[in-house]
């Protein structure tokens, strides 16, 4: 169909799963989404199979996180307002990092701060051996008032990314919010300011009300929606961003199966992050890796990277009626 797919090789017997993400080469494109991963999963899966580790967002100061209840379920998704409970940097460096040092998998640390300067100094402090990349969570909808965040606007994104870029030589990933009208514009701002990749996206600001008590279901009133419900929305944003920037886009939103991951890669994602799916199927990430490999073998695609932005867009100036007649 497109060149990458019919690349002339007859029988693909081995699939190269590796992908390049802004300075890093990952053994495969599958990694956890920040805040949905911790050491507990090592009892479920072999950590050496993952493309990367991504930590829960950490902050400089100690934080308690949001009031309870912190999650509420809805059909097809989860609304969370965990907030960012954080034990601070020393705890992270002394206790969390050594844990992951045992594996041959790059460690990406997610950071957040209330100011651009705060982001920069935190990034500088964490630019140490053992950390492979920094993911700047400038999109968390819970910590700023009424869900606002840096990533809501191109200007604030450009500013914070520029400060971060000055502060670290590590690969810099910037995680965007889906809660804005023009995500590709924000992605361009991050690229212009020196980001090595953008992660699209965080959760979608949402709400739920309890009909028994008439109170919001979450202690924080509003929270972020994740899971299958948001997949078509974030997939569209990934598609738009991949057209807008040259740096890699990492897709994140409702990915539960290998098919979901492939759809994201076709839309333009160079890698994917898996969040809520892990809560339902703790081995989701390794199942997805296996499924990616099987799909490429079946479709004779030698490198998983060939899928990236593989969506076939045809000019259709009149209705395509070809599928209408499946029986003749």
């Amino acid at each position, binding site marked *: 169909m497109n060149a990458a797919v019919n690349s002339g090789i007859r029988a693909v017997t*081995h*699939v190269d*799963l*590796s992908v390049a993400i802004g300075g890093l080469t990952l*053994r*495969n494109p599958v990694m956890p989404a920040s*805040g*949905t*991963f*911790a*050491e*507990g*999963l*090592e*009892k*479920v*899966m*072999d*950590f*050496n*199979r993952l493309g990367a580790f991504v930590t*829960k967002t950490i902050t400089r100061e100690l934080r*308690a*996180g949001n009031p*309870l*209840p*912190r*999650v509420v*379920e*809805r*059909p*097809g*998704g*989860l609304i*969370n307002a*965990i907030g960012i*409970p954080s034990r601070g940097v020393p705890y992270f460096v002394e206790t969390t990092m050594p844990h992951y040092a*045992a*594996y*041959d998998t790059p460690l990406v640390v997610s950071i957040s701060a209330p100011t651009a300067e705060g982001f920069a100094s935190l990034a500088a402090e964490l630019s140490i051996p053992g950390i492979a990349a920094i993911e700047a969570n400038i999109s968390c909808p819970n910590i700023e008032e009424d869900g606002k965040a840096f990533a809501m606007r191109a200007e604030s994104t450009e500013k914070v990314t520029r400060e971060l870029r000055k502060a670290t030589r590590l690969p810099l990933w910037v995680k965007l919010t889906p809660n804005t009208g023009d995500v590709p514009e924000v992605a361009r701002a991050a690229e212009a300011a020196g980001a090595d990749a953008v992660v699209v996206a965080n959760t979608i600001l949402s709400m739920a009300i309890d009909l028994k008590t008439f109170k919001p279901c979450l202690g924080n009133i509003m929270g972020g929606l994740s*899971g299958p419900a948001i997949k078509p929305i974030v997939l569209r944003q990934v598609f738009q961003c991949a057209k807008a920037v040259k740096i890699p886009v990492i897709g994140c939103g409702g990915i539960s199966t290998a098919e979901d991951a492939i759809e994201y890669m076709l839309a333009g994602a160079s890698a994917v992050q898996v969040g809520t799916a*892990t*809560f*339902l*199927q*703790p*081995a989701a990430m*390794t199942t997805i*890796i*296996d499924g*990616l*490999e099987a799909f490429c073998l079946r479709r004779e695609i030698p490198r998983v990277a060939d899928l990236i932005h593989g969506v076939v867009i045809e000019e259709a100036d009149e209705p395509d009626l070809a599928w209408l007649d499946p029986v003749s």
Partner: protein
Amino acid sequence: MSAQHDQSQAAARFGAAIGGSCPSAPWKASIVAELAEVVRNEAVNAEYRHLVVNCSEEAAAAQPGQFFQLLCPQPAGEQPFLRRPMSLYGADPDKRQVEFLYKVTGAGTRGLDTLKPGDRLDIMGPLGVGFTLDPGWRHIVAVGRGAGLATLAPLARAAKANGTQVTAVFSARRPELLVSVELFHRHGADVIAVTDSEATSGPANVERILRRHIAEGRCDAFFTCGSSRLMRVQQRLAREFGLPGQVAMEQQMACGIGLCYCCVRDFNVNGEIVNRRVCWDGPVFNLMEALP
């Protein structure tokens, strides 16, 4: 956890680091999500159902106080999204079975109620830190109410194996809603039932019962689950008499395995308020550290 580390490092050395292409790596899961086969799913009284499933070796190795996350089937018109935490009610490593005792309360447990023998149920576990039995304890007292009786149940068998005598103080709204009394009797435990309908379940009466056991030297440790009111009585007595105790806590859960921090509770650790994940640091905690 350090054993895990060693295994994974070994895996790294022996080539699993090459990535997705080596699923036969020597690493082995100790927590699994699997499609267990329903053996039985029956009402034990107006509120509780008893569920027995065939499962893997890993799941059947569950310990008292640990729990599973069940992916409940969808009952008509409802779509429970998250898994639901359920305490281990019984485990048989030989038969490779685990048991649960659950109360039908909402969408998830209504879904569980639809299961028939032969159906498949996706169970994930064993999860969390369970109860600890000191080999030196000769007599323990277990105090439970509601679903707490399910959580305490596997203690009866474990205590017997440990040579420890058990007195169970079971609280319920009405006598016919008590569960697992038989099970405790079968393992040689004494059961004292207190109920709201007979006006015996108040804290004052329970305290009287507990004080008698302490006075008679029949309370080396407290185990409790299911009532913060009764927990407070035990905390007071434990402090007064210098007795140890363990409490199994509940909290809404999303992941059940320490990833999401939705299940946190505050604990009083030597006067300092500490935040802990019920699913990962518990669900069983030191009685003296628990806050109601």
